[in-house]
């Protein structure tokens, strides 16, 4: 699905020509090898760029027909997962010397958003946007719980921040393109991937755009091995257009892992690392190690029933959301019963119904007293 945002063609032509010339001249901070790699495309000039756009829908259709291909025509073909080191404690690692795989053809000041069609297994492909003020949200984020990405399990662990192992992970964060329940932009990602791996880059790009009113090419590609339903990680690329990468330039791989938890990427099943039993509460084989509320403990001996009840409760909670009270001044959120709420100025108080993850994604922190 591609969204075009309006821009005068003549302006686009002018800026594109300037940017192509700049790249050919080797200006900016891009790696020389990368520039030479993209130079041929740039030399074919504006005409080629326009034709690329005209043929885009056809190219996308061809892509959609190719069920073996996991990403759209816009995905970086030079990336190889084999070049990525194994996870060793950092949530992301630079790849390709931190130089994104964009070519001269990509450089434009036309706003767009492009989300790949789901593949035959229902998995997301590349999400690609030219982020600018025009694409950013003007209203609060909506509910995304209706989307169940491939490999999705509602499973909680005590050793995961916020308990839930999996988040509906925006490929392109809401703060950049304002996409809510777009199933082509949501994958099953660990809490760690979402908060430690991806959010820092979204924050960096969002700030830059707000401060400069410039454009940032931003592309996120989920990397799946074989027919796995859960991505191994995501390739994230960013490049600021007007200043030729002086403000934003990165190419990183963020690991879809959760420290302390082992994940079966084929199915999304999970278990505590070092725990030989397979799967989380979805199959019910790991018991005391999982987050269990009183209701679940009553059915402790009936694992199947426990799993069913847990799923039903989680689903119900996701559909209705939880009620929180926000302090818009301190950026903390509380349960309505929290004693801090009574001390809050009315002018700073705001009711919210939704998920904890949504609030954290909006920059709110949980109250340390009521620990919502």
């Amino acid at each position: 699905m591609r969204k075009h945002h309006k821009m005068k063609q003549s302006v686009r032509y002018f800026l594109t020509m300037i940017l192509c010339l700049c790249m050919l001249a080797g200006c900016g901070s891009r790696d020389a090898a990368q520039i030479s790699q993209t130079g041929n495309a740039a030399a074919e000039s504006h005409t080629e760029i326009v034709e690329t756009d005209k043929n885009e829908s056809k190219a996308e259709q061809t892509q959609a027909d190719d069920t073996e291909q996991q990403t759209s025509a816009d995905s970086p073909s030079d990336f190889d997962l084999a070049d990525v080191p194994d996870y060793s404690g950092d949530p992301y690692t630079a790849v390709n010397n931190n130089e994104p795989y964009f070519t001269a053809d990509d450089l434009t000041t036309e706003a767009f958003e492009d989300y790949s069609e789901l593949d035959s297994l229902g998995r997301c492909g590349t999400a690609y946007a030219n982020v600018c003020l025009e694409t950013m949200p003007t209203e609060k984020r909506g509910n995304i719980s209706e989307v169940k990405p491939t490999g999705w399990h509602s499973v909680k662990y005590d050793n995961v921040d916020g308990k839930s192992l999996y988040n509906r992970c925006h490929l392109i964060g809401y703060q950049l393109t304002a996409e809510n329940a777009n199933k082509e932009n949501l994958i099953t990602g660990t809490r760690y991937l979402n908060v430690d791996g991806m959010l820092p880059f979204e924050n960096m790009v969002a700030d830059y755009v707000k401060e400069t009113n410039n454009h940032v090419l931003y592309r996120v590609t989920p990397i799946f091995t074989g027919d796995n339903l859960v991505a191994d990680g995501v390739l994230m690329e960013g490049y600021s257009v007007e200043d030729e990468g002086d403000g934003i330039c990165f190419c990183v791989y963020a690991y879809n892992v959760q420290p302390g938890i082992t994940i079966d990427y084929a199915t999304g099943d999970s278990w505590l690392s070092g725990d030989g039993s397979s799967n989380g509460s979805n199959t019910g084989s790991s018991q005391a190690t999982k987050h269990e509320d009183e209701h679940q403990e009553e059915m402790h001996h009936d694992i199947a029933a426990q799993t069913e009840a847990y799923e039903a409760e989680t689903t119900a909670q996701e559909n209705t959301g939880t009620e929180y009270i926000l302090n818009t001044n301190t950026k903390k959120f509380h349960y309505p019963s929290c004693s801090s709420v009574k001390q809050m100025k009315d002018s700073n108080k705001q009711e919210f119904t939704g998920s904890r993850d949504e609030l954290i994604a909006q920059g709110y922190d949980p109250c340390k007293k009521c620990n919502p």
Partner: protein
Amino acid sequence: MMQVIVCVDDHGGMMFNKRRQSRDRVLCEYVMKLSEGHQVYMSAYSAKLFSEDDRIIVSENYLEEASEEDFCFVEKESLKAYEDQIKKLIIFKWNRVYPADQYLDIDPEKMMKVQEEEFVGFSHEKITMEVYEK
């Protein structure tokens, strides 16, 4: 001795891939206001953030050139070698997390925190200023 100004994220990060983590135009105005009457030394990279001002001195060797009363706005330089010469350290905290591969490499806890203020930035809902002195 010198007075140093830095910006950090929640993890003490300052830069990623040789680029600043973040920026805020209100913070730049704040820096010029708090340094009123003094010169502010910085690199050419940092100077792009500020409006033209006669008090801004641009140099790639500014940490060596600044005098005791001058301020140094530091984004990409290591401060480890200058730790003993810093009499005042002003830390602006973004209150967000950004990618980082370069961090503040001196420990403010070795100094005494004498001031803390919060203000609203242009692209940041809350920026915290902490002032440390020896």
